């Protein structure tokens, strides 16, 4: 076991240009990689992109089109009961703008059959006995920034009523997460159906924050044949999006998990900061910028900056297994 320390410090200075990229050159680099990947190692004829209506999947779809042409990209919209209707509208608009073939498949009946909603609601009722399927809900994270440990709360809202929240016990927290993870895993199952049918490859659409910090479901949205923007900070994804002509409503939409019936921002569920600040913090961490300098740049206290660094490191450790292939007792292939 190793103790956390501030990352080694270098002469890097934070300034507004640290995340600047040449969007056109970057798009060329990615599209080149996407074309090569199809030839080898994927040996497939095009790409399936699950489109959520958010900026990451929209940029990935546009990059795939730029790489192999609209006729070789298949878009998928996979809404379920808790998806915001605006997500589907935005995703369709993106697909139509790109001129790609797409399909909308409502995965709610599959999730219903798997017991996704029932299992989740049973766990929620253990915390709020009067909870019914008509109530809205989400999980949020508390603590951490205030010096306490992170813990999870269930936030519910009865029809026409006020928000209520309660700390989630371990069993109910894990049950709710396990049940909602059906959503990402069913989506990926449908994606692979279409990929196999078309002899295409699947795309994963995490940005660097999500990929680095493990904000994905293993064998769900984390499963993919190629992840075109996993190396890009969210700020850089937006820069690509602007260059690629992504519709304004997609670029201006607040990043959301779109997994719970109450609006859930990524920063209130997973990340310690808003994505633009989180980008700077992760860049600073990766470049060995001292916590004090990050604090001054983002207008926080040095203790808060140290917490952000510790949180980055802790999430890497906690989610490392999400990236790992299965553990083998001995090597099977020589190379």
């Amino acid at each position, binding site marked *: *076991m190793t*103790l956390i320390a501030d990352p080694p410090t270098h002469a890097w200075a934070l300034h507004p240009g640290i995340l600047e990229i040449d969007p056109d050159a970057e798009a060329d680099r990615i599209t080149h990689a996407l074309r090569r990947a199809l030839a080898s190692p994927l040996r497939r004829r095009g790409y399936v992109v699950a489109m959520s209506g958010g900026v990451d999947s929209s940029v990935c779809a546009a990059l795939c089109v730029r790489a192999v042409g609209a006729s070789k990209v298949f878009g998928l919209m996979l809404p379920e009961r808790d998806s915001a209707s605006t997500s589907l509208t935005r995703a369709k608009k993106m697909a139509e703008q790109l001129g790609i073939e797409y399909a909308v498949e409502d995965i709610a009946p599959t999730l219903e059959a798997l017991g996704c909603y029932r299992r989740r609601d049973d766990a929620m009722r253990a915390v709020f006995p009067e909870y019914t399927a008509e109530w809205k809900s989400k999980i949020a*994270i*508390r603590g951490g920034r205030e010096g*306490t*440990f992170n*813990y999870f709360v269930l936030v519910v809202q009865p029809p026409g009523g006020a928000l209520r929240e309660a*700390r989630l016990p371990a069993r109910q927290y*894990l049950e709710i997460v396990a049940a909602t993870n059906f959503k990402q895993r069913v989506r990926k199952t449908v994606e692979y159906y279409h990929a196999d049918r078309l002899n295409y490859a699947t795309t994963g659409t995490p940005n660097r924050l999500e990929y680095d910090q493990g904000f994905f479901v293993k064998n769900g949205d984390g499963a993919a044949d190629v992840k075109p923007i996993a190396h890009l900070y969210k700020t850089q994804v937006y820069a690509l999006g602007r260059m690629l002509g992504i519709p304004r409503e997609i670029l201006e939409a607040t990043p959301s998990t779109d997994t719970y019936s109450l609006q859930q921002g990524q920063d209130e569920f997973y990340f310690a900061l808003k994505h633009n600040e989180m980008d700077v913090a992760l860049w600073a961490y990766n470049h060995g910028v001292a916590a004090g300098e990050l604090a001054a740049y983002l207008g926080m206290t040095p203790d808060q900056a140290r917490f952000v660094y510790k949180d980055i490191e*802790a999430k890497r450790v906690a989610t490392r297994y999400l990236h790992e292939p299965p553990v083998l007792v001995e090597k099977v292939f020589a190379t």
Partner: protein
Amino acid sequence: MEQIESKVRQFLRENFFVDDSEELQEDMSFMQTHLIDSTGFVELIAFVEESFGIEVRDEEMLPENLDSIASLKRYVTRKLNGRVSA
């Protein structure tokens, strides 16, 4: 105090698969050594509440109460004696 420590060590051994003799020093920070992550802390809270019949309040979820065997011993003892300050 010894019974509390024994239960905590057993919980850590059985749930986090650590070698008691080598890795579970009394004042070792669970968080800084990455022994326990955020889900692990949720499980630790459940263990403390169920095993010792106490309620861990939100404002008590502090490193000085929960982040090592030593701090857990002090915290649980204070709670059982009916006095804990957040």
